[in-house]
Structures are given as C-alpha cells and as structure tokens.
C-alpha cells in the first residue's frame, strides 16, 4: 500500500507557502480591480488621489508660510500621507480578512495567515510604487531627489510589518463580535493620525510632547522615512531597536491571538 510522506523539509514548506501567497496576490489583484475600466491602475491611483488631495489642501491652507527647515511642503505632506495610508488601509480592512475570503479557505493550503500576507504585500508594493512615481515627479518638477531611496523603501517595509501585526490583532478580535470591531477600527485609525507624524516632525514640538509621542511606533517610521527623503539638514528622531521591538511584539501577539481566535471566527 502507498505510504504518505510523513514530514517535508523546512525549505519545501517555505517554498510551498510562498507559492500560495503568490497565487493569492494574483487573485487579489483580479478580484479587487478586475480588467474593466482602469483595472490595476486603481491600486496606485487610490493612495495617489488621497495623497495629492491632502498635500494640496495643506499647500493651500499654509499660504506663503514656509516650512520649518525649509522643507518642500508638497512632497512633505504627499509622501507622509501615502505612507500613513498604507497603515490605514491594511488595518481598517483587516477585520474583513476572513469573511471576504471565506471561499479561499475551502482550499486546505490557504490559511488565514497567507491571505493576510498576500494583502499586506500587495498593498505595500502598490504604495511603494506610488511613492516611487511621486518621488520621480517631484525630482523632475522641483529638482529635489530623495537622499536615500533605499532607506525610504525600508520605511515602507517597517510600515507593512507594523500594520500587519496590528491587523492580525483586529482580525482576531472579531471572534468577540465582527460588528463591534468594525466600528472600533475606524476611530482607531483616525486617532492614530496625531501619533503618525503625518503633519509634523518631532523637532517642531515642545519637549514633553516629543517624549510622549516617541513612545508610539508610527512616528519612528515616519521620521526614519523622512530622513531618507530629505537627508541631513533637519534633525530626525527615531530609535530603530525600539521600533523593531514594537513590530516583533505586535506580530507575536497577533499570531498568538489568531491561533486562539481561529476556532471562533465566523466563516
């Protein structure tokens, strides 16, 4: 009689996971954007429209007043908003992770974790491309090229991991009641705005505010990414080991919570 293989090697398992996540990303592209009208372009257009909107508004309201440190006002708010948009979109869609994809879970290879990774990677790639396009346009129009694009890319990756961990926790919380979590997640992402550094930098603020803000993770990502964008000239405040601790702890809690919540999630 045929004997089933008992265990597969670690790398085979990793490759299998990667294949599943890759297939899920392709499918997410098809189902979310389809082939009609602009299709995939919407993936970049959505953050781009919001980012340009916020940046223009800031530009108009600010009038002739120059920015502290003489930074380019438009690129400051544009890139800042798009980076925060990644956090907002991943976290606010996370409670629907299971319900929106329950058909996928009929495939035994598809796990909730893989579905969430596919989404996080896809949106992060879209945001990274969107930022790259705007950096190029800003470079062409204003002649201001990013100081260290690689550092900015790492900033996007930090944001992805932070949002992913936070999203896992929100998704797990839906075990207590999907509607409740859905109502809480939107205020949460709005209340994150003042902590995100989207509209300001740490050195603009008085000391006590700085101290409180630096306990939260989003601001570290924003400052780190802005250093890559504007380079030396203004002071940046971030603490990478502290940020990485936040990310690791959030993801760890998220995974544990998901494991505990799985039997109770509604499909």
């Amino acid at each position, binding site marked *: *009689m*045929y004997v*089933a*293989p*008992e265990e597969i090697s670690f790398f085979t398992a990793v490759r*299998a996971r990667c*294949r*599943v996540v*890759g*297939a*899920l990303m*392709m*499918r997410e592209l*098809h*189902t979310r954007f*389809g082939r009609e009208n602009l299709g995939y372009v919407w993936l970049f257009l959505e953050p781009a429209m919001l980012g340009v909107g916020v940046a223009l508004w800031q530009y108009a309201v600010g009038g002739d007043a120059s920015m502290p440190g003489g930074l380019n006002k438009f690129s400051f708010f544009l890139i800042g908003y798009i980076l925060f948009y990644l956090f907002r979109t991943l976290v606010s869609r996370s409670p629907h992770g299971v319900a929106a994809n*329950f*058909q996928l*879970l*009929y*495939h*035994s*290879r*598809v*796990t909730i974790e893989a579905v969430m990774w596919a989404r996080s990677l896809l949106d992060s790639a879209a945001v990274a491309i969107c930022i790259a396009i705007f950096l190029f346009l800003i470079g062409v129009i204003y002649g201001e090229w990013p100081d260290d694009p690689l550092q900015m890319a790492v900033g996007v990756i930090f944001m992805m991991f932070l949002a992913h961990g936070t999203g896992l926790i929100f998704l797990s919380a839906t075990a207590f009641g999907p509607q409740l979590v859905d109502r809480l997640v939107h205020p949460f992402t709005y209340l994150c705005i003042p902590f995100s550094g989207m509209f300001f930098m740490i050195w603009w603020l008085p000391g006590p505010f700085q101290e409180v803000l630096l306990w939260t993770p989003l601001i570290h990502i924003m400052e780190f990414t802005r250093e890559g964008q504007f380079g030396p000239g203004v002071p940046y405040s971030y603490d990478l080991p502290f940020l990485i601790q936040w990310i690791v702890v959030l993801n760890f809690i998220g995974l544990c919570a998901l494991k505990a919540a*799985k*039997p*109770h999630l509604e*499909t």
Partner: protein
Amino acid sequence: MLQLEGVHKSFTKNGLTREVLSGVDATFLPGDAVGILGRNGAGKSTLMRIMAGVEHPTKGRVRRRMSISWPMGYDAAVHGNLTGADNTRFIARLYDRPVSWMEGFVQDFSEIGDEFREPVKNYSAGMKARFIFALSMAVEFDCYLIDEVIAAGDARFAERCRQALLARRSKSALILVSHQIHTVRTLCTHAAILDEGRLTFHEDLDQAFAEYGEL
C-alpha cells in the same frame, strides 16, 4: 494520511452553545474509500469543513499529511466574478500544476467550451458542478472530500464523475458524505456513521447500512 484526534466543535449563537461534534477520531489513508452516513443536521457538513481546513476544531486536532481537496458539492472553491480561465489559473498556481496544461484539461473534461472565458457566476448549476469537478480532477489530490451533490447532477455526468473517482481510488482516499445508502454503496468500501457528534466505523457496508437504518 488525514487524522482527526478527539475533534470537538461547538457553535455559540444567541448565548446558546451547541456541540455538533463531540470527540471524533478517525484516520484516512490513500486507498480508503469511506462513506460517512448521517441524518440531516448530524454535523456532516461541519465535519467536512473541519477536514478541509475551512473551520478549526474547538478542541482536538487535525493532522494532514496528504493533499486534501476542497469539499466538492459547495461552489465555494471558485470565485463567481472571475472567469473559468482565471479560476483555473489561480488553482493551478496554488497547487503547483502546469497552468496551460490545466486550462486545457479543465476545458475538455468539463465540456464547457467557450464559456470557459466567461465569469463563473453566469454558469448554469450543471456547468458549474462540471467545472468544479474538472478542477479537482486536474489537481490530483491525495484525498477527495465529496458531498452527495455530485451524485445529483445530470445522469451522464454523474456517471463520468463516478468513473473518474473509481479510477482515482487506487491512488487517493475518498471521503464521501451522504444521507443516502445508495450513493455510499456505489463508491465506497467502508462506511462510518455520524450520530450524536460521534463517528463509528464499520468494515462491512451492509452492517453499517443496517445500523444506519435503525437510527
């Protein structure tokens, strides 16, 4: 091998907890063809969903050491807004099958012709059943989970399904869930009865049917 160890599953609705499965133990190996008989509401679909990995047991564990199909008989494995071809490519990527070969195989086997390029939601019920069955045959699972719906389609296609499943029986495990004795008899070598949240195995089909008849 697909192994269930002390699987419990309960659902809480409106503050009431109802235990659907209370300690199911089972081991399925390639080559097994097991029919699971149970009355309506006995927890057959819950058991199926747990074996497929859609739902997770509240207590106990499920071990999968072979590839397991989606439970056939639900249309949940495919996405209605995507075309048949898109769905096929997704499943080919997911299960690491050659994409173009799989497109050809599914289009032939399901006999859906040009509608292959149409969104699945436009398919008739029969076409959809044929399409989903063809997909599962192309993947070549080690274990097929089958709901009785397959036996329901039109007679000619039901016969083709039966032949295809019998042909796979030497390599794969078949787990068929049904409340009809007839369906189990045509495909299975063993039977098990799901009653009051527990699964009892019978080596002998007739003995199982006799016991099922008394429930």
